[in-house]
């Protein structure tokens, strides 16, 4: 299978690569670009650990081929902090103890950042609903919900 040249913008930087068409976007980000903050938990779109922003919208990077991101804009967890300062959503997760092993966390952060942008004052039900697109085995979700609420209350950008 011939390689396809792609060019993507990730966290504000341009990247080029020659990829097999079948290369999953999650593997491209992790192993070609070295952005290992995006985690892979199931590779069938259920767990949500690999969630990234594609043109600002959260998507499962295990359910996209890298070629499909050609010419698009991606944001991964590495792109949230600015100048070494954690993003307000990241800080809220720390303050509310919204993570334990931290494996599912990057995907959840990406969903929540996009969610709060669209819905700055969400209800508890809306928070629960959007977090339900992610699996976490450590926290029982309670403190994740608290973290989202805290981030919303603090008016995260």
């Amino acid at each position, binding site marked *: 299978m011939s390689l396809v040249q792609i060019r993507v913008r990730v966290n504000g930087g341009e990247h080029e690569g020659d990829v*097999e068409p079948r290369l999953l976007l999650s593997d491209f980000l992790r192993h070609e670009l070295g952005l290992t903050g995006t985690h892979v938990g199931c590779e069938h779109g259920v767990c949500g650990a690999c969630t990234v922003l594609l043109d600002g919208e959260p998507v499962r990077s295990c359910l996209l081929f890298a070629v499909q991101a050609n010419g698009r804009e991606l944001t991964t967890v590495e792109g949230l902090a600015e100048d070494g300062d954690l993003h307000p959503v990241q800080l809220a997760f720390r*303050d509310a*103890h919204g993570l334990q*092993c*931290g494996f599912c966390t990057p995907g959840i952060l990406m969903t929540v950042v996009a969610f709060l942008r669209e819905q700055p004052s969400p209800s508890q039900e809306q928070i629960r609903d959007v977090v339900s697109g992610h699996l976490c085995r450590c926290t029982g*979700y309670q403190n994740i*919900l608290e973290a989202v609420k805290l981030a919303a209350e603090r008016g995260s950008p």
Partner: protein
Amino acid sequence: MSERWFGAPVVRNEDPRLLAGQALFVDDVQLPGLLHAAFVRSDLAHGRIRSLDLSAARAHPGVVGVYSAEDLGDLCIAGPVLVPPPPIERLEFHARTPLPLARDRVRHVGEAIAVIVAESRYTAEDAAEAVQLDLEPLDPAVALEAALAPDAPLVHEDLASNLAAHVIQEKGDYRAAREAADRVIRRRFRYDRGVSGALENRGIVAWWDPHDGRLSVWDTTQAPIPVRNALAATFGLSESQVRVIAPFIGGGFGPKIMFYGEEIILPWISLQLGRPVKWIEDRYESFFATTQEREQIHDAELAVAADGTILGVHDEFLHDTGAYDPYGLTVPINSQCTLLGPYRVPSYYSEFRVVFTNKPIVTPVRGAGRQHGVFVIERLLDAAAGELGIDRVEIRRRNYLDPEDFPHDHQILFQDSAPLTYDSGNYAPALERAADLIGYEAFPAEQQKARDDGRHLGLGIVSYVEGTGIGPYEGARVTVEPSGTVSVVTGVGTQGQGHFTVFAQVVADQLGVDPAHVRVVTGDTMEFHWGTGTFASRGAVVAGSACHAAAQAVREKIFRLASHLLEVSEDDLELAHGRVTVKGAPDHGFDLSELAARANPLRGAVRPGTEPGLEATSYFGPDRGSTASGVHALVLEVDPETALAKILRYVVVHDCGVVINPTIVEGQIHGGVALGIGNAFYEQLHFDESGQLSNASFMDYLLPTATEVPPIVAEHIETPSPLNPLGVKGVGEAGAIPVAAAFAQAIEDALAPWGIEVLEIPLSPQRLFDLLERASGESPTEGKPGETEEVTP
């Protein structure tokens, strides 16, 4: 001490790295020339390997090596039994452990047969499809009870039956208790299988560097030091040549304590090829290749007096160990011991049979068999309460051990081979508090009001104990560095429990520093190489106590050196805010950084009998485990039309001794409860008659999500353990243990008009539908199913 960090809700030291996506997990390891492995696994539950042709796979472009059992040679031997059975009289145990790669027979779906090594994982999977494997199907033994039938297919052909172990433990005279009883309550309970479901699958990166003469292995293990020792022994290397690193681990929950064939194979491949090689288990593989838990069938009997006093318990159970039993008897012994709960049980007869089946291997998963024991005793008490007309909270209170009963010797052996002796406990306050928090008194009115509106609410409230914090030991090294940073190094691995923070808190108090300035390193055998691992809710208890001891030793060194340098008595010194100073003269003293530099002089003489540096290594080994306890209560709503249940509120009042960090402890409880809810209502592995798993994906194996887990209120009661200097008990597994028992009681309560009885977990909506269908023919006021015997004295 000006500030006390122990007991404070300190934010976690490990979080910034995790949140920024900078924490290193095994699959993040990238090395020059890294190769990738994929396994060829059996697609039959039971079969004989007729032929295995690897030539096409070897010829596949991009493939570097393909190996079978034959290629492994002498390495392809059955692994050790990791936990030998306790010295129980008349114990029968047949050890059968798997080969790294199956040689001529496969005994469960997913057993590894060959391994492909290629330039990419994609290529390795392509080549795996080119392997020509001819498997002759053999009849499988799948169902637990049927596997013990005389004509059942044999999982291990050299054994006379599928019996893997037979164990009896007893105390008192159950027969006499039964005769003295006013009621004997007998039930059959089933508990089915699930997976641990860590979000990170297992993975290994192995790198033999011939220039350095060192084998480095990044491994998602809960036990890096035992893995290091095993690898050194296997490959004839010195232990110092092998470095095992358990970096950040994406959840452990038990199965990552196992030592797996892949952990031998990957290093061996790197030794063969002189290149680093990585294998990351994928989610599909994880449903077969990672160990599972908890299929048991109990035939249990409770002998009670008319006032609800427990006179004795008789329990015979079957435990499914899957195709092999490499972890010994830990899980069924936990079930056996935990059944006694917080209660005074004068006589106990417990007999179990461990059974081989053609299913994946069973080893501890969070709770590790304790769930079953709690389920059995709590369900029996519920039945007794119902039949004797005693309130369900009252029957528990009447049977609790009293505070003055401790230490309490149950006269049987626990999984760690020590006598099952509870160190301390105070059970009634937790029960009262949980009843208050859940609204027990007001609930009948709430329930009636809801029923009037056509809604069915039910309440469940149960007790449990958990044996935690067992030996043998852990160690820690504490160093005050000249930079002023305090480093703490310990051998246990960490999987999200907050070790980087709680160990820092323990040390910070001793050294008068902020825990944020304490750098904790875990799970790297180069840094610390004595210890066993993270299991049995023991990290904070055993490693935490070792950190405490090492920090105390450093504290003594600080005082001794400062006393010498300042020429004042140690009694006149104080240590706070990173400085040791003369009391009442805060300017007269040293920053710890300066003192650390002074402790490591470049010239001059170190006084005889002293060591350089502000550093100490200490070990801690408890005589036996400490017993944590608690009460769970919940209210749920059942829709009898759809057979769906929704938990509305959940309360945990628990006692894990002295709490180091309440936020972290609550987090552990939330997660445990969520796992327990999964086990109780959502998660089940469905094996068909041929031993095939029908739901090996996260689409069909249902981990609870945020919409299924209710808000959880957790409160602490602190009864210190006398067995360690911190007074702590373990908490990692507690949340998961009693959920099914509480859930079952609440379902029965909600559906009281139907008179159903819940004897089986998980209770899926399908099962609840079946129970309701069966009950709907009967009059709602008639007695419950199940056997009951009236014994006239």
